[in-house]
């Protein structure tokens, strides 16, 4: 059986050397250590969030694979709130369902309330208030999880 003190020393060595694997065999006392070479990606733990799937942090503007885009159904001007001094319809972190109003797109003085048409959590607001938008522009990303 591996002595407790030796085990502690090995554990400390693992941490200091940034080892990613540690194995041992009793009776013969065989130890197997390995570390990740610089630049390589450590394997994700089982509990790692889906948003970092692919083992890369999400670059700015690039949505996670499972996020859903809410797109502009028309050309116009994007408004995040019902009035200039009002709170935005939604902000990152807000829960939305299919009929939740997420913004207004104004075209020819007709204010069109845009509904989420999906269910989940707003992750990103892709337009700024009063910004012109084209048809099919992505307005929001929603995490359906």
């Amino acid at each position, binding site marked *: 059986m591996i002595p407790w003190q030796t085990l502690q020393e090995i554990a400390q060595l693992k941490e200091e050397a940034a080892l990613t694997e540690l194995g041992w065999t009793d009776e013969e006392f065989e130890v197997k250590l390995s570390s990740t070479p610089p630049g390589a990606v450590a394997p994700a733990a089982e509990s790692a969030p889906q948003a970092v799937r692919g083992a890369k942090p999400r670059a700015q503007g690039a949505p996670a694979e499972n996020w859903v885009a809410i797109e502009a159904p028309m*050309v116009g001007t994007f408004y995040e709130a019902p009035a200039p001094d009002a709170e935005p319809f939604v902000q990152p972190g807000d829960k939305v369902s299919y009929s939740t109003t997420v913004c207004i797109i*104004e075209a*020819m*003085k007709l204010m*069109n*309330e845009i509904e989420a048409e999906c269910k989940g959590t707003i992750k990103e607001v892709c337009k700024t208030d009063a910004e012109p938008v084209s048809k099919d522009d992505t307005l929001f990303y929603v995490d359906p999880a």
Partner: protein
Amino acid sequence: MHPEIKTHLYLPESISTQEYLRQSSLPPWSIVRASIQTGGRGRNGRRWDSPPGGLYYSLRYPTEVSSQPPALQIMGGALCWLELLQELPETPKDFSLKWPNDLLCRGKKIGGVLAEQHADVIDVGFGINVNNFFDELANYRLPPISLSEAGGRRYNLDDLLARWLEKFIPALCRDAGSFFSRRRIQDKLITLGREVVVNGKRGKAVGIGEQGELIMEMDGKVELIFAGDVEEVQQY
């Protein structure tokens, strides 16, 4: 009141009739009118002065009543106003529309419209300067004028609204195809044929498209304008 109207609310004062409708669960074919609005707004949240004497109202109607593009329906509502004003006796006839939804008299603003489309209804709100007068020192983007100033007499607001409903509702429900035609609207658009600046770009307004968008010629190219403020290069 027009028989199609199910609910008619009259408010002595309201933030705005559009805001009132938005926060209400009133059914389609409801109309809300206010003597004054304390927070009336135009496009891009601009303040819309609503002093006593003006006609301020919003009509909620179901989207299913017309297959015409909503923007053309709204412009049709403005066109109804233009026709109604021109029919009034002892009133000047020089009314016109400015894209997308301003009503002008002698080149000054006599009314405006703002609309909101929700899931299955459209709320269209009008502000018409009728018996009200304006602060001459106030700084307006477009100089205002009221019907009283133009016609030299007072007008009955109830009568004007009833006459507008008699024009708009049948046109919306039964005759939309011809009444809201682009040609009919274009004929009254003072914007067309003029050098204008929209969203910082200068060009010539030459028509409106199928959805009601402004067609402009800019540097030999055609551009479609769906949202923006038209600034005239020449005075109307």
